[in-house]
């Protein structure tokens, strides 16, 4: 038996390697750097790793390879775009994470205990979130570039596990936070079991673990499609769970609400990109030839997702939950890009993911700003009159909401337009119609929040807007600028995406 040494093409893996290295350094920092210095060091390390990864990505943006890491990883235009989006969003999310105050001082301490009180007094911070974030980002980078089921599964877990953990680390309302972690974890594991089961059947159907092998199996398969269909169905459950599509969405409102807001922002934005990135690759390359089987089902799911997300969002009283339902609705919109199964759909989905991700981080960043003495205030009723007390927060939040609603001159509109037109082009008219309808429903609750902030007077219980750390403010400003810029002049980015976004098989 001969063993050939593997060839890894490190340059294409380097963005992930930088992140993993950064994470490992972070772990070492936990061990060896004094407590006081840790936050700053960790932040520097994390941002440095992200920045290096991004720079490296820029270097390799034009390259294409099917065989990186012995065929485990495929690198092409969409991969570069998705990874870059994830990195950018991770970066501004890290700004939020760095703004202290969000994470439990001592997660191991019982909520409300003396020990916790002491930990808070001593200014303890759990800087472990930085390496955890980096691990998650690395997993997210890997997810859309995975080229076989093993890598896909490992990436899925790698992006999920840190998020499970981080969801439980909130400083305030710790019981809810831990509950969110539990729910996220249990349901996540449940769905990855489905994912795995589906993977097994795909393997059984095609006799191959690699995407190209599965595709060949679909193209030239000799038997009937039972195994394939089961495989596609169950694998899809795992993916749809991650993006929060109905009926696999139930975790997201609870988790979004319970998790520390920076984590919510990060996972709402970045996870979606990663998961949709993987979906795009899988549906556009691997399952493309079995289109007949999954498009109708996925269309149905998309329609139900849009409508349910929008309808339930109307009735929400908590801003984070409202954003969660809105993100469910957006998952539906994004699914229509997957259904489109054409170049326009690919471009549109990538653009939409980036635009939506940025706006989401921005919106959650504003949520972190609205606080009273006991932490963030997420009850919408207490957002009354915010426009008066904090024009900055209210105006930027309104901007993000308008982007979510798809009002022209915001990035959301261009995204919606491009994704719906792609779906329409592929003949999915029902999806487009449902999308339009649910956009109308959705507009209602976005406007309701704007009314609350601007047109009603504040209640007496004094929700104050804390003067935000410079980093949070930066996040909000960056997100707002990008949102408007992409709404007014999206041409450069769209062109960039159009030129680059071509899947290789």
């Amino acid at each position: 038996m001969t063993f050939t040494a593997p060839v890894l093409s490190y340059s294409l893996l380097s963005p992930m390697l930088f992140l993993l290295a950064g994470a490992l350094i972070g772990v070492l920092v936990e061990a060896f750097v004094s407590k006081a210095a840790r936050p700053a060091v960790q932040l520097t390390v994390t941002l440095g790793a992200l920045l290096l990864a991004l720079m490296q990505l820029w270097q390799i943006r034009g390259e294409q390879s099917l065989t990186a890491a012995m065929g485990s990883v495929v690198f092409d235009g969409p991969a570069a775009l998705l990874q870059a989006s994830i990195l950018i969003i991770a970066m501004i999310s890290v700004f939020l994470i760095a703004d202290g105050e969000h994470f439990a001082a001592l997660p191991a301490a019982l909520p409300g205990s003396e020990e916790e009180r002491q930990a808070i007094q001593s200014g303890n911070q759990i800087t472990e979130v930085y390496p955890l974030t980096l691990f998650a980002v690395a997993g997210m980078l890997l997810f859309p570039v995975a080229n076989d089921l093993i890598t896909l599964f490992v990436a899925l877990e790698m992006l999920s596990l840190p998020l499970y953990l981080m969801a439980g680390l909130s400083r305030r309302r710790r019981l809810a936070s831990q509950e969110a972690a539990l729910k996220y974890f249990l349901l996540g594991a449940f769905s990855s079991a489905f994912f795995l089961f589906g993977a097994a059947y795909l393997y059984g159907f095609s006799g191959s673990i690699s995407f190209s092998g599965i595709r060949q199996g679909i193209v030239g398969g000799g038997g009937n499609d039972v195994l394939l269909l089961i495989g596609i169905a169950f694998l899809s459950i795992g993916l749809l769970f991650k993006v929060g599509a109905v009926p696999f969405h139930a975790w997201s409102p609870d988790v979004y609400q319970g998790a520390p807001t920076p984590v919510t922002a990060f996972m709402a934005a970045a996870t979606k990109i990663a998961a949709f990135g993987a979906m795009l690759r899988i549906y556009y390359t691997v399952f493309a030839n079995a289109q007949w089987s999954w498009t109708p089902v996925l269309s149905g799911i998309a329609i139900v997702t849009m409508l349910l997300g929008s309808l339930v969002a109307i009735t929400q009283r908590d801003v984070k939950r409202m954003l969660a339902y809105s993100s469910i609705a957006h998952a539906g919109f994004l699914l229509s890009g997957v259904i489109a199964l054409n170049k326009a759909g690919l471009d549109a989905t990538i653009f939409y993911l980036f635009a939506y991700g940025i706006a989401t981080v921005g919106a959650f960043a504003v949520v972190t700003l609205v606080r009273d003495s006991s932490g963030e205030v997420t009850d919408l009723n207490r957002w009354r009159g915010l426009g008066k007390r904090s024009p900055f927060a209210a105006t930027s939040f309104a901007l993000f909401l308008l982007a979510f609603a798809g009002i022209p001159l915001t990035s959301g509109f261009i995204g919606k337009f491009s994704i719906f037109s792609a779906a329409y082009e592929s003949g999915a008219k029902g999806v487009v119609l449902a999308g339009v309808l649910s956009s109308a429903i959705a507009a209602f609750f976005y406007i309701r929040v704007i009314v609350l902030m601007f047109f009603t007077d504040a209640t007496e219980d004094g929700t104050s807007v804390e003067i935000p750390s410079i980093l949070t403010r930066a996040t909000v400003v960056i997100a707002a600028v990008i949102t408007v810029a992409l709404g007014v002049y999206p041409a450069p980015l769209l062109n960039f995406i159009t030129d680059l976004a071509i899947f290789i098989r």
Partner: protein
Amino acid sequence: MKWLTLLMLLPLAGAAIISMLPKSMEKAAKQAALGTSLVVMAATIAMVVRFQRDNVDFQFVEKYSWIPSFGINYALGVDAIALVLILLSTILVPVVVLAGWNEAHGGRWSVKTFYILILVLETMMIGVFAATDVFLFYVIFEAMLIPVYFLIGGYGTGERAAAAVKFLIYSLVGGLLMLASVIALYVMSGAQGGHTFDINKLSELQMSSTTQNLLFLGFFIAFAIKAPVWPFHTWLPDAAKSATPGTSVLLLGVLDKVGTYGMIRFCLTLFPEASETFTPIILVLAVISIIYGAFLAIGAKDIKRLIAYTSISHFGFITMGIFAMTSQAQSGAILYMFNHGFSTAALFLVAGWMISRRGSSTISDFGGLQRVTPIMAWTFFLAGLSSLALPGLSSFVSEFLVLVGTFTRYPVHAIIATFGIVLAALYILIPVQIALHGPTTPGNEELKDLNLREKLAIAPVIAIIVVLGFYPAPLLKVINPAASHVITQMGFTDPAPTNGGK
């Protein structure tokens, strides 16, 4: 010279200047807003002078690539229809600024914000009429909602937030339906020679009649909500009641025109066959609007709601004129858009002054104003006469053209619609009697008559109403070629005299 871009940039520049002023300099903000809008008006007139009225193509054309990957251009250009409406907008803005000098003070936000919103709105009003790229039009069509929303919700009275929301939701729903149609057009253009939003190219698309009907509906419902046509009208009375008079003037005078303008520019141009298919239904809706709006105006207790309902009736006339497919009706409809802007402006501004003096908008709170504040009363009366289309005032010409033009093709509709003129007499004279005649209602004895500023603001409006009533020819000469071009494009010719079948 890039006239249209210049026109759009001027208000923005003004807004930028105002935004740099400190909050305390309220007067300076007002003056800057007035100055800016006057400059814009002057520039518009300078442009209008250069307009070649016999040329039915778009003029002052500008085109820059905006989003090349979707074939979207920043493309501007005006024909007579757009030109007239731009002129209307830019004349009304300074009037509104001057007339509503103090109306920003009751708002949630500062005075300067109010004027920034007004000027931004002006830019969009010009842009929405000037856009020849469907996408650009849609963008501005939707984006316009935002400043209006804040103007109603932030500076209005009463249930302003609810009214603003209602306005926005209605408009957004309509806009989204239109978006679906826009997307379909875009996709079809892609299949037929490359993605484009150029209105001229889109009008050459081949599509099945079912598709055309559906897409037409998408556009039409959006415009019918905007216009508003029965039964999509219920947002308007609430919005008009809650908005400041100035905002209401812009809302009814200009923004709602986007709906009727859109019907001509998009519904007719892009979907000629579907327009024909739906004409019977639309005409019925228009006639219902005319009669229904009039009855509701008669039943209205609130002066602002009353004016809103009269507008619904008037928009019924405009819609009917647009779809009657005769050059008289078409010209009449276009002229009506212009005239209605001024007669509503006059009514609303005077009503606004009455309300701000009395502190109530209930009609029965007034009484005998003719003795107390004769100038205000007579101005209101004159505006009312314009609204009931008294011959010799501008609305008459347009209303009669619509009726006579409709009659030649759809006599029954025209006959029913004509009953509206009797109802018009009622809905104007009833409030006139209650508010202006009779003994002076207690509490009104000390009301002040119009001051110089207010007189200055209303004078040009009244002048336009009267002059165009007797001498509409200058405007008609501009409008006629465009109107008949629309008719020709649709494949219609005016019905020849029938001689009663002899």
